[in-house]
């Protein structure tokens, strides 16, 4: 009223003078988005949001979880039964990991279809691929922690597949297991990797990813002349921020709903005897698991081919993509090989995942 700044304004001015808060805000919110905001650009922000929520719920779970073979199962049961809404936290964390995998696939697909991996964005693509590997590793290591039959056998199957890798496979398998069969050492190692190494690596690489992204700038839509794109160019705030917020809210509420409708239910405590349980990995590895069941991949060499050689060759191909595909054309409808390739991979994953679910009925 009297033109004098109030206490809050004084505090903000104090921090701004020392940190450059307003410059930071302007840099973050006033990033130009070529061609204007789009729903297709929300996946990166949503991934960051899911990761933050996974970190928050993960820390809350760690207050009660005991990473020892004797207590892991009991402490998870304690979280479910005794901790106030512990079941909700655990289920949110569980469904959050699935949401992260879905979003990574969506984000990578968007970047691939938009041709946003091409020059000068090769580094963003490579770091993104490394982040994809980290997300899968998060899912794999986190799966063992409840120490039930599902956790134990999914890990056993996963480690056996890794063991088939030439030269380093044996070392990785021995390092992860820490003994002939999964036990205390395995749990300790998976826990440390899950809560220390992977989050640190993810934070570092995500920062690098964002830095490269800001350096190269958003790719923008693949259609339209440079004049049209210039005319439509908008700032990150408010339109893209609004879309990101809507997408984050949708994802958050979906995960909450899934936690309510399908909360995590533990199986029996882990034992080296599978009993009636048919070991299988988490749903996002099911397509690979089903491929291993095919007769053409029977035998030691076939299992190596389907479990190790093909997935790794595919990842290598993805890493080499910006250097192989040097055509500056970004329009996916003018890149038939890329479009057909993407469709084959997506349909293949879908068909094998569905087949694995149907196959489960045969086994039961």
């Amino acid at each position, binding site marked *: 009223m009297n033109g004098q700044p109030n206490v809050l304004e004084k505090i903000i001015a104090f921090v701004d003078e020392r940190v450059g808060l307003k410059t930071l805000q302007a840099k973050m*919110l006033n990033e130009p988005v070529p061609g*204007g905001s789009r*729903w297709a650009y929300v996946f990166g922000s949503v991934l960051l949001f899911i990761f933050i929520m996974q970190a928050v719920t993960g820390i809350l779970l760690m207050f009660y979880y005991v990473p020892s073979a004797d207590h892991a199962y009991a402490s998870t049961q304690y979280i*479910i*039964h005794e901790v*106030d*809404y*512990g*079941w*909700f936290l655990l289920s949110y964390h569980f469904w959050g990991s699935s949401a992260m995998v879905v979003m990574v696939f969506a984000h990578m697909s968007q970047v691939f279809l938009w041709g946003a991996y091409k020059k000068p964005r090769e580094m963003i693509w490579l770091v993104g691929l490394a982040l994809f590997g980290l997300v899968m590793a998060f899912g794999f290591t986190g799966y063992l922690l409840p120490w039930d039959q599902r956790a134990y056998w999914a890990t056993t199957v996963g480690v056996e597949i890794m063991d088939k890798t030439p030269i380093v496979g044996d070392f990785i398998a021995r390092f992860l297991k820490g003994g002939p069969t999964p036990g205390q050492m395995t749990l300790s190692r998976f826990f440390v990797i899950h809560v220390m190494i992977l989050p640190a690596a993810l934070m570092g690489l995500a920062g690098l990813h964002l830095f490269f992204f800001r350096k190269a700038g958003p790719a923008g839509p693949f259609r339209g002349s440079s004049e049209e794109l210039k*005319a*439509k160019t*908008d700032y990150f*705030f*408010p*339109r893209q921020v*609004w879309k990101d*917020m*809507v*997408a984050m*809210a*949708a994802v958050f*509420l*979906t995960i*909450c*709903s899934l936690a*309510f*409708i399908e*909360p995590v*239910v533990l199986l029996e405590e882990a034992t080296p005897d599978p009993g009636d349980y048919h070991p299988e990995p988490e749903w996002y590895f099911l397509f690979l698991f*089903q491929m291993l*069941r*095919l*007769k053409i991949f029977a035998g030691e060499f076939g299992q190596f081919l389907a479990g190790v050689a093909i997935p790794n060759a595919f990842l290598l191909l993805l890493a080499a993509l910006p250097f192989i595909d040097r055509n500056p054309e970004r329009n996916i409808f003018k890149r038939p090989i890329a479009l057909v390739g993407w469709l084959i991979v997506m349909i293949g994953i879908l*068909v*094998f995942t*569905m*087949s694995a679910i*149907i*196959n489960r009925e*045969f086994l039961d």
Partner: protein
Amino acid sequence: MSSVKLGLAVAWPAFWTAVPAKIVFALLLLAAGLHPWEEAGLVLLLLLSIPVDIWALSVSARTVFLERLRLQPPDQLGLTLWWQGALLNLVYLPLGYVIESSTKAGAKAVVEKILEIELLKGLPVAERISVELVLWSVPSAVMLLLLVLGWLFLFGWIVRRQTAAARASDESYQALVKQWDLMRVPADQPLLLAVFAASGVGLVLLFWAFMPVTTPHPHELYQKEAVKVVPPVKPAEVLQKTEKLIAQAEVAVQALEEKAQEEAKAQAKGKGKGQGQAKDKGTGKEAASPKAQPAGSDAKAVKAEKAPAATGQTK
């Protein structure tokens, strides 16, 4: 712009704009103990969705009119598109459901017949499942795609009818964008964030206010197993029982051994008598017969066989 593109340009963002609000309602219903996909919960969710859909259609259609078509959106655009779209859905969705389900059923029946061919009967299970899935899902997916395109065409036609009532805008693109922004987002940046945060806090409070009252804790799926009281172990009693069992087993084994010896003796006598008659035939059979084995080894085999089973039982 074609009708399909126009329909997609309005319906797709409208769908995503409405989704978060609908999930909020669904979540609040869940917290209040009502399942949003059953009876009262479903009716309530559908009713609550009506204003949300009208708002979402209004937002996305205005954007398309201003940005893509450079037209000033007519009044009540969202409401008009909603009721006309609702009429279309009333006819199209049940029809589409019937067509899609009969295509799927027909494709499945044909695939089953194909897989009964002698040549394909030997397919391993994993391969058979994938082949079957691909064969029936391809025609079903194609039909679904056609149905979606049909719906988009008709909805686009409804949107196109509204463009006739709209007047052209001669403002610059930036001015249109600003107009659109001001229509739904306040120009004041901190105000937008404050409103968004306040709505979030309000919803969280509502959520927690509902949940402890109506949601059982822990979740209804987590039924605790009844605790089985294991009788305390008394070492002296266990030892006595085990000793008794061993003594009984020893007596039984001794009886078996004696019986086996007597049988072996009787057989040896009979063999001596009939040796001249069946010189070549008898030897092979006798060697294979367990009765012909030495008594001691027989008893050991019985013991060895029983041991793991017994431990299993005790466990």
